[in-house]
């Protein structure tokens, strides 16, 4: 390759780092990077993201849907959503590491804390904004409360509920990047420990984290389209 622009050169170096192990001057001869370590870190980041998202869903989704269905607890559902955005991610991870301990068991709930507010708020708002006339009609044909929630409100609320899930996923996968500070070695290790992985490693980490987040977002958007009932698809397209 001829001498190219330094920007392209650094991106080229990063791509090389992802696929081929490189020598590092602080690990004592042990090489770093390469495909096997990269895959290992990607899987770790996916693991902690999926676990935290699942935990956030288990906690926030039923509460949000229930509050929306009953039309109660607006202050909790909306207020918590607003307050949740103010949590500084770095402080959260650092505190969990310093006070409770490091590892998957402590980081997963910490990341779930970031996912709960958007899911809770959107589940609440999604169900609340369903036309009351439709709910009354469902009652009129003899549906039980649970049937109304499951067959009427949830399908109509789905785009907004999924919006919350997507927001939660973005927040969680982004913060999972700094999880190495709390002992969960994700892709962020390439970024945070640049002294070990070098400039190429750091840029490689940034590229991979960005791609991972985009893939998750596009995947969830596709899932949302599939889950949205056919009648609604035309309207929301």
């Amino acid at each position, binding site marked *: 390759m001829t001498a190219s622009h*330094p*920007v392209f050169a*650094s*991106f080229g170096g990063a791509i090389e780092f992802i696929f081929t192990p490189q020598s590092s001057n602080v690990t004592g001869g042990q090489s770093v990077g390469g495909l096997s370590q990269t895959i290992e870190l990607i899987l770790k980041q996916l693991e902690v993201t999926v676990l935290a998202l699942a935990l956030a869903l288990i906690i926030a989704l039923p509460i949000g849907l229930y509050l929306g269905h009953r039309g109660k607890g607006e202050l909790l559902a909306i207020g918590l959503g*607003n307050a949740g*955005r*103010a*949590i*500084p*991610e*770095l*402080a*959260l991870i*650092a*505190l969990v*590491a*310093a*006070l409770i301990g490091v590892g998957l068991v402590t980081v997963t709930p910490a990341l779930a804390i970031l996912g709960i507010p958007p899911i809770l708020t959107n589940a609440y708002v999604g169900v609340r904004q369903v036309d009351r006339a439709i709910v009354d009609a469902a009652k009129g044909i003899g549906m039980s409360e649970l049937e109304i929630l499951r067959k009427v409100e949830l399908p109509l609320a789905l785009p907004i509920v999924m919006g919350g899930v997507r927001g939660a996923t*973005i927040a969680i*996968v*982004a913060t999972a*990047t*700094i999880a190495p*500070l709390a002992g969960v070695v994700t892709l*962020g290790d390439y*970024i*945070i420990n640049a002294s070990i992985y070098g400039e190429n490693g*750091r*840029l490689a*980490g*940034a*590229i991979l*984290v*960005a791609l991972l*987040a*985009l893939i998750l*977002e596009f995947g969830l958007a596709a899932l949302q389209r599939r889950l949205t009932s056919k009648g609604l698809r035309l309207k929301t397209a």
Partner: protein
Amino acid sequence: MASPVLVAAAGEVGKGFFHERTSESLPCQAKPDEVFCFDWARDHIDRFGTPALQHIELVVFSVLLGFVVAFALALLAHRQGWLRPPLLALTGVLYTIPSIAFFFLLLPITGLGRDTAIIVLAAYTLQIIYRNTMLGLANVPDSVKDAARGMGLTERQLLWRVELPLATPEIIAGLRIATVSTVAIATLAVFIGAGGLGTQIYGSGNLTFPTSVIIAGGIGILMAFVFDGLLLLAQRATTPWRRVRPA
């Protein structure tokens, strides 16, 4: 108001006579089981001043930049409808890329420091501000627009005198979300060498010393609420007609 003499005397008392510097009064960094060290906090509170100011600067500059760009994009898309899907997708991509990754994607181009942090944080706010501005403009009732046109307003007058004022609550709601999120995310700017409260969280030894993390995180949360309150006041001030309507 305490007289200078009394303050000086109190200082002497604290230092000399009653408060001998025994091992118990050492900073609690030596005692890792301590959650919050008040002595250390009292002695070192001044070291949070500069990072807090840097943090405010980061937030104000990036939200302002984000607002200018997103607002311009929204006005453009308002006039040229075909731009809406691509702009939504573009801002969505910028919103999705985690800030810490975005910092280092830009590093080869813009280098270490505040500029890179501001660009990334501004890029993150685009989607929120753009979407809310479009929502606000879409929520203006057609009847109002028809009435304005009937009174002889041009399209430009209609936009600036009718549509945008009526869209102000949604626009400011977007700004509030963007600002509060940016205050939180700006703690990560420490990784790109842009200073801010993150320096007191992720600094030498801070990760294992909760007191500094708690203070810096607390200042961040407080800052978010203050910004939020100020924007809420701005919204009230710019939309006086909403106050007379019964909620």
